[in-house]
């Protein structure tokens, strides 16, 4: 119960702040949001400390069910950490729009969605989050992403309505029709192929932080994890079909990212690839369990989620910081920014190698775990996963070389990074590398290791 209360507080704090933050002006909005997130982080840590002796907890009944497992205690603090970093890294334009409010709202909803035990509540939360984001993206003139998010929200509502009236429904009992609706809604929310057009174009939005909020995996994944996965375990949804689609999406995302000449769109396609890999990791757990393979794979999906969430948020923030200063960047020419932005260059590289899964990063462990059971997807699936990982790494290096190398441009006053921007990137990169070198600090890994000793 204490765990649930801590998590509830962690989620409610930013939600409540989101309703009042717009009453403040300018930089005050940033600091109000940051304060709420600080307390939220303490609450998630408190939840972890309280939770230590319990592998999985089911609390409550009906709508008011909570499900607490190691994944929740890993992803929740990650969400807070990332949101805090985004708040610190957001531009002044973000402060003048309602971005702080949206950010807190979406992250609060995501944290609550993580631990709800009722499919009704989960789908309701995700629908609200999708529609909220759709409204804000629509206000900023990005129709394609607005359409995807709005459709995603409607599909979640349709799934909710098809659940029936059994309020004690568990995730395993969700009707097949609702599962399919949730699956497609989740795919749209995450921008998986063929719904990727919206994701790639999202970063056109004027306020880049909003573009990040609209594309980072704050939601969607939990729907796939809680609702779709059990249906696959039961054989009601074809694992081969879903995983096949995810593999295709990952490969297309990686390939289109390399083919792109615009940095923003390339990043958008990288997100498609990354979201697909996370989903593959989450889905593979079931097949492995069915095949009698040891249960290390639940770790893969959730670690990938945590790691990719951090690195895409960081990489996206770094890209936003670059483009804020020099305008849209192209990948068919050199921009030569290394001399004038050395710190940003370094952080871009660190976060980029984190995204690519270099040794010493959280992604390296997660990808190694994913490869551990890649064979359950067959030979083609295995090849696709490996190829995708290789292509992702190449694209990161290509982006780095194009943006920061080449004939140097003269540094200007506004190229200088503010301390809060540096803090934002350091916060994200530090967890990526700390998680890679000391993975046992992560609750998910610690619990899995403890249970692995039996």
């Amino acid at each position, binding site marked *: 119960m204490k765990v649930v209360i801590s998590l509830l507080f962690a989620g409610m704090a930013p939600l409540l702040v989101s309703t009042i933050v717009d009453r403040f002006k300018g930089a005050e909005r940033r600091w109000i949001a940051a304060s709420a997130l600080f307390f939220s982080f303490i609450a998630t840590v408190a939840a972890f400390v309280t939770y230590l002796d319990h592998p999985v907890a089911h609390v409550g009944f009906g709508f008011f069910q909570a499900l607490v497992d190691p994944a929740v205690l890993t992803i929740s603090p990650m969400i807070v950490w990332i949101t805090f970093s985004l708040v610190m890294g957001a531009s002044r334009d973000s402060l003048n729009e309602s971005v702080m409010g949206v950010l807190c709202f979406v992250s609060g909803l995501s944290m609550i969605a993580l631990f709800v035990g009722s499919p009704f509540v989960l789908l309701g939360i995700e629908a609200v989050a999708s529609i909220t984001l759709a409204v804000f993206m629509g206000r900023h003139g990005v129709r394609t992403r607005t359409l995807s998010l709005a459709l995603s929200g409607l599909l979640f509502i349709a799934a909710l309505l098809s659940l029936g009236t059994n309020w004690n429904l568990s995730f395993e009992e969700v009707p097949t029709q609702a599962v399919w609706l949730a699956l497609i809604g989740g795919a749209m929310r995450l921008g998986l192929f063929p719904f990727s057009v919206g994701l790639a174009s999202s970063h056109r939005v004027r306020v880049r932080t909003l573009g990040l909020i609209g594309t980072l995996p704050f939601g969607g994944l939990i729907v796939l994890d809680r609702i779709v996965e059990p249906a696959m375990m039961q054989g009601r949804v074809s694992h081969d079909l879903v995983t096949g689609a995810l593999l295709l999406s990952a490969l297309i995302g990686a390939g289109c990212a390399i083919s792109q000449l615009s940095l923003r769109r390339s990043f958008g396609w990288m997100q498609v690839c990354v979201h697909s890999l996370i989903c593959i990791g989450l889905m593979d757990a079931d097949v492995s369990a069915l095949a009698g393979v040891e249960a290390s794979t639940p770790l893969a999906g959730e670690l990938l989620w945590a790691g990719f969430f951090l690195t895409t948020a960081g990489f996206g923030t770094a890209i936003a910081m670059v483009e804020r200063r*020099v305008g849209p960047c192209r990948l068919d020419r050199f921009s030569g920014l290394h001399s004038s932005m050395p710190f940003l260059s370094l952080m871009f590289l660190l976060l980029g190698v984190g995204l690519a899964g270099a040794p010493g990063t959280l992604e390296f462990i997660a990808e190694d775990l994913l490869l551990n059971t890649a064979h359950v997807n067959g030979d083609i699936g295995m090849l696709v996963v490996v190829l995708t990982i290789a292509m992702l790494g190449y694209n990161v290096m290509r982006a780095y070389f194009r943006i*920061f190398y080449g004939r140097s441009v003269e540094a200007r006053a506004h190229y200088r990074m503010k301390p809060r921007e540096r803090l934002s990137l350091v916060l994200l990169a530090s967890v990526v590398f700390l998680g890679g070198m000391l993975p046992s600090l992560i609750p998910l890994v610690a619990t899995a290791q403890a249970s692995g000793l039996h």
Partner: protein
Amino acid sequence: MQTDLLHMLFFGAILPVPLSIILLAVGLFYSNRIPERRIHQLMAMSMSTSLLLTTALLVPLIAGWIDPIEMDLGAIVAVRGYSFDLAFELNRDGVIFLWLDFALCGLVGAFSSNYLHREEGYNRFYFLLMVFVLGLEIISVAQGLDMIFAGWELLGLSSTLLIAYFYRRPGPVENGLRAYKVYRTTDVGLLLSLVLIHHHLGTTSLDALGQLTGPSALLIGGLLIFGAMGKGAIAPFTPWLPRAMEGPTTSSAIFYGALSVHASPFLLIRVRSLLESDPLLMSVIVALGLITAVHATTVGRTQTDIKTSLGYACVAQVGLIWVEIGLGFHTLAMAHIVGHAILRTWQFLRSPSVLLDRQVLARAMGHNPNPTGHYFEKYLPAFVRRWTYRIALERWYLDELNVVIGRVFMSPFDLINAASEWLETKIETDPSEDVVSEVLEQ
């Protein structure tokens, strides 16, 4: 007692480099103005310590006075069905390569302190050099293939960033990216082999590789060979290496003359228990080695600058080392690696002075030195000579082949991109990017 001493020596030999990297990283993060002297001292201390301790283990291991030293630092992740172990083993081949690593990198580090004195990227060079040394360390002593892959990745990253050392010029940067593309392409083979090994054996330990037989051994062996081709610049992946000469001479010496390029045959030596299980694999190694040697020899003869000539000469020798491995002469191959690495390092470090050396020699002799070498091509018919020259000048058209393969591979993604952007223009009111760019911060 003896075991503890050996473990201490082993641990002492491999620890200084990662510690130096951490110190350097922290120091550079806070200030890029660390004095050159301090960085050089740090590097010198860690290299000399590692070299001394490795030398203490070198002779006993080669002579067989002591058994291979194993050290297990535990697993950083260990769950049911998976573990990532920090397990190391120093055997005869590993200690030789490790010793070579410390000796040559230490030498190059000492040389670079003058060569790169007051260069803007002095700190960056040393940091990347230490990362490179760490990568080689891991490859030399890792007990499992997944650890070797970690070292392989570090090697690739540091190598790419050092090729692009002179980052202001587009040429080195393009060539760095080209090299990285080759590395990632061949890493697919290594990754796939890792997946399959784990699937069949449940472990990636090198000791267990010999248990693989039949079609799975053939497939995994083939993938490992493919994985090793990139770093070794084995045909058709040769074009990146001469272009990698754009980096500082000292990094060219250590990477493409000495160690990085020899990591490829060293990997084959480490996994030889698997390769030897199938004669077809060994035949493939011999064939690839021969083709590479012929290719590099012919192309090298048409080069007009010293570093590129040396690069191709190096590749030709690596091809021959592959032939030796394919024929089962592992000891010969290791001896060849050591001798060749030392010779090439010397040649690369002397290459900026090659014209001066020639002038000094001419003055001493009183006339220009006579041409050396036996030019076998004079025995070929004229038209064969012409065409061989033409093909060699075009580097066997491998660049064009790589471009064609790249375009074919990327064409579906180009189509999807185009379709996606077309769809966007139909939906968006203003699909232009520039109009919606964020206001530049003032």
